């Protein structure tokens, strides 16, 4: 419990450093409840996600954290990615499952998700079709990803 408070108090300072320039915002949804967090960050450059702001929803089990890792999903809009389930935003990342150790912080997790966007793990895809397209026709893959991102942004504007 107190570990998450420690992280929270150190977070704003770390966000100010050059290392995390790509994070637009990262804070708990409610100030008195540190179990739900939202993070907005810029899509990494030289990827189809460049120029788009992406959002993550991070849920922390305060009883078990940091022995158990947090749950992370893309929200409010999901992204097209070989390791992301399109309809739910679920992310397949070893760090969030078997490879989790309490030494990682929430910032490390966000960094790892960004790393996944830069370099998809094609050995264990959640979206098999997209992984196939990535392999065979990278340009088509880029088109699909960007189409989905623009579509989602448009939907948001309409609402």
């Amino acid at each position, binding site marked *: 419990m*107190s*570990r998450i408070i*420690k*992280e929270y108090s*150190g977070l704003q300072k*770390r966000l100010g450093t050059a290392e995390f320039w790509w994070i637009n915002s990262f804070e708990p949804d409610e100030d008195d409840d540190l179990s739900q967090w939202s993070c907005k960050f810029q899509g990494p450059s030289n990827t189809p996600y460049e120029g788009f702001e992406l959002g993550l929803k991070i849920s922390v089990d305060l009883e078990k954290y*940091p*022995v*158990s890792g947090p749950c992370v999903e893309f929200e409010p809009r999901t992204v097209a990615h070989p390791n992301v389930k399109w309809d739910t935003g679920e992310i397949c990342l070893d760090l969030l499952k078997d490879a989790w*150790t*309490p*030494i*990682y*912080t929430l910032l*490390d997790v966000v960094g790892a998700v960004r790393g996944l966007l830069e370099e998809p793990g094609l050995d264990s895809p959640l979206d098999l079709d997209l992984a196939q397209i990535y392999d065979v026709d990278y340009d088509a893959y880029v088109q699909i990803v960007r189409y989905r991102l623009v579509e989602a942004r448009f939907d948001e504007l309409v609402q």
Partner: protein
Amino acid sequence: MCENNAGNNAAEICGICLESMNHADQGELLPCRHRYHISCIRKWHLHSNDFKCPTCRKESKTLHRKHDNIEIDLKYWCNVSLIEQFAKLQLLNQEENEEINDAEEDANEGSEDDTKDEEHEPEGLLEAEGPLQHACEGQGIEILQCALCGEMDDSVTLYCETCETLFHPSCLSELLCEVGEKDSNCTECYGTLSRLRGNKPSSMVIRDSNVRIYDGRMRDKRSILTECIYNRFTPTYTVSYEDKCRIQEYVRTELDSFYHRGSISKSRYITINKHVSRKLYGLSLDGFDPVRINYREQARLSIKEFM
């Protein structure tokens, strides 16, 4: 990746809880030398079900407490017989210290030195909190850990008679309630559970740095080394280490009489001991059997041959 690292000494932070560590509650994993709070790293081991370091993922063998130089074999941490041995040793140490203190006090009333002060401090606590608990204050190893919640406190009072796993009674009854069972058995091996006897210690100290835990038992450091070396070189005889020790006992008893009379030198003693012992091992290929073989007589005869 993480802001703290194992290298610096000043206000070191535990990577698991992000709190600072003082010397007493700090444990160093070996061989990787990464440091955490002992309770934090134990909680993680319990969850991960292995002894890997959270930082480097290297499998650890021992947890080292630097300030009192105690190495804990992770494999045998939760072991009731060990705890009882610790408790006994602790009581022995304590009695010895008290005797020394009393003697010192009688001898030189006026002169106060630092070591004496340190020895005195726990005595006050002893009266207040019972025989074993005084030792824990500030310096003890917390060795009773609940296998369900991972907490290490003195309300861990149940243990399995078979596999010696330890539990909080409250954790166990909560679990039983959840799965709708009535009989409480060990969650690991389904063995029968017992209550820890009497004045159970909440934590313990080994003061003697020559004592190590090996193969689940408290042992003298040198005897462990001997056994390790012995095991490395496969013995020519099929006689076990324990049997050899017993046989050597006979040979030594017989030889000692010669040695004490001054009729043989030390190096001669060693040579004869070696040869005679080997000869007797050869007689005991089916195991140590004092009924069938008269070791004393055999040893005496063999020694005479050599003289």
